[in-house]
């Protein structure tokens, strides 16, 4: 902390720096705090001050057919997209890390491009590309595009983990008689698991709060939760949105904590010390 010989300006800076940090953090999360209390309002409008508290909007959220269908859709599309993105992204990273070849950086660029290209362009492109194939208004189409949006996160996190990977471990495994697939499952996978888990988390979050592509591609049957909230706020500003948002926040926090715990465990395994 602050050493005993600190001068007055040093002390001032010490406290200013901390106050500033707290303000930055508040700035980042205060929108979340604004929405949470509103979900407990008994009022029919999204306004402060809250005059009476009730759980009626949670009830509305959980009983309304449109909201529950949107919730279910999100839980169909996001895990499916995450699975595809994680498997493909991990394989791509392993391939990119294992050897040198001329078009390596170009390939890396293409794999990461869905993260850089504006989502609205991805949405329009996907719509025009999928329409003749009959993939608009289908779960498959939505899952595929969400997977493409998630791949960059997996590629980046897994590649970062592989960058520090000791390739002699692969050679050692081969010298003991393990084929490439066994080596991958028994040696590479467990050691890059932290990267895979982080990438999968990002891919899931990307799909779970994606609105733009869903606007272009989803028919009413494929309405996801964010898409439903987006529609709801335009049409009827009901505090059920606040309830949906609060549930989403809680879910995201729980997901983050679980995966962070998993990742930490895998990380300890990788670099176990006395």
């Amino acid at each position, binding site marked *: 902390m602050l050493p005993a010989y600190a001068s007055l300006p040093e002390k001032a800076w010490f406290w200013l720096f901390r106050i500033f940090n707290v303000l930055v953090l508040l700035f980042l999360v205060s929108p979340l705090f604004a929405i949470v209390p509103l979900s407990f309002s008994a009022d029919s409008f999204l306004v402060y001050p809250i005059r009476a508290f009730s759980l009626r909007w949670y009830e509305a959220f959980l009983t309304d057919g449109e909201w529950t269908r949107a919730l279910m859709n999100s839980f169909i599309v996001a895990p499916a997209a995450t699975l595809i993105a994680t498997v493909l992204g991990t394989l791509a990273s392993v391939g990119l890390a294992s050897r040198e070849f001329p078009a390596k950086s170009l390939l890396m660029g293409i794999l990461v491009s869905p993260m850089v290209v504006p989502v609205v362009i991805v949405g329009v492109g996907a719509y025009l590309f999928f329409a003749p194939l009959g993939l608009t208004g289908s779960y498959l189409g939505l899952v595929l595009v969400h997977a493409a949006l998630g791949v960059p996160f997996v590629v980046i996190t897994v590649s970062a983990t592989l960058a520090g990977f*000791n390739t*002699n*471990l692969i*050679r*050692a*495994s*081969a*010298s*003991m*008689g*393990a*084929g*490439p697939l*066994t*080596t991958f499952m*028994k*040696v590479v996978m*467990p*050691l890059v698991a932290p990267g895979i888990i982080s990438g999968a988390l990002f891919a899931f979050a990307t799909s779970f709060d994606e609105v733009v592509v869903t606007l272009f591609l989803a028919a009413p049957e494929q309405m996801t939760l964010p898409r439903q909230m987006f529609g709801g706020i335009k049409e009827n500003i009901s505090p059920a949105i606040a309830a949906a948002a609060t549930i989403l926040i809680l879910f995201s926090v729980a997901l983050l904590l679980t995966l962070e715990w998993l990742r930490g465990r895998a990380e300890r*395994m*990788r*670099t*176990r*010390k*006395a």
Partner: protein
Amino acid sequence: MSETQSGDALVSFRGVQKSYDGESLIVKHLDLDIRRGEFLTLLGPSGSGKTTCLMMLAGFETPSHGEIWLDGKLLNRVPPHKRDIGMVFQNYALFPHMTVGENLAYPLKLRKLSAGEIAERVKKALGMVRLDALAHRYPGQLSGGQQQRVALARALVFEPKLVLMDEPLGALDKQLREHMQLEIKHIHERLGVTVVYVTHDQSEALTMSDRVAVFKDGIIQQIDTPNALYEAPSNAFVASFIGENNRLDGEVVSVDGEQCSVRLGDGSLVRAQRAGAEAARPTAMSIRPERVRLGALAAPCETRLSARLIEQIYLGDHVRLRLALGPTQGFMVKVPISDVDTAWQAGQTLDVGWMVKDLRALAPQDA
């Protein structure tokens, strides 16, 4: 060039070449037979091709040209995991997410042995490297020396035909390294397994090996027992790379049988053992510092010259003396402490002498 292997050879390299860029050859031409049960060391400076040879044998590199045979089988198209060759790496390459016991069980599980047999073999292998108590530790919890022992046990536990070691002691400190050298040597003697060992440390090679292959520029300069390499190096590179060596340049005046006469730079004539030098050609002569006698002890020697003493370095069990002999300013002599004359002073002129057989006239290698 595609004859198979001779009787006692386990591994044969036949006309092997390796180039990474298609232009320069890192291994120029390799014909090498590795005998069953021997401890062969590939010794050479970095970039001499020794590690590339090991990697080609393990299957991690493919020869650009030539054939490699293992136990009567052509290896060129066999992938590493089907070669049944154990390997010890410089930085151990233990699996950090598995305990010591799991690391050792890994090759055994791949061979589908029963749980009982795996447990028994792991226990035996750990006993061999004296780490019985550490089976449940993770590699990250062990010291460097312990990790290297685990790596050694893991390369041996599945009883491969051949064990390769790529500078396995490079990361250890000197004392531990010397201890591990003996330990590896004893394990080799006990198991009788064939070992190919790569190092750039000549004392390590001399300590452990049955035979040493000295590499330079992608070619084996000499392959011989440690004793023969030291006492009878076949060229100037081997003489200077293995042990300490004094080099005297001159020109061969006449040759008679095993010996020859050589004129030194200052015009004096000396006799030397012929080891590749040819008449009327320049030669690099080599003599070990411990073969040179000084002062009164030089009297019975066949060759006697005089040299000026430049400095003495006291090293406890012996004294090293640097002398100016003709044009050579750095002529080193090693004298056991019991033979040192306390009257020797820097600047003094001393008698130096040696036996003719100890001065070897080699073909010069000025590449």
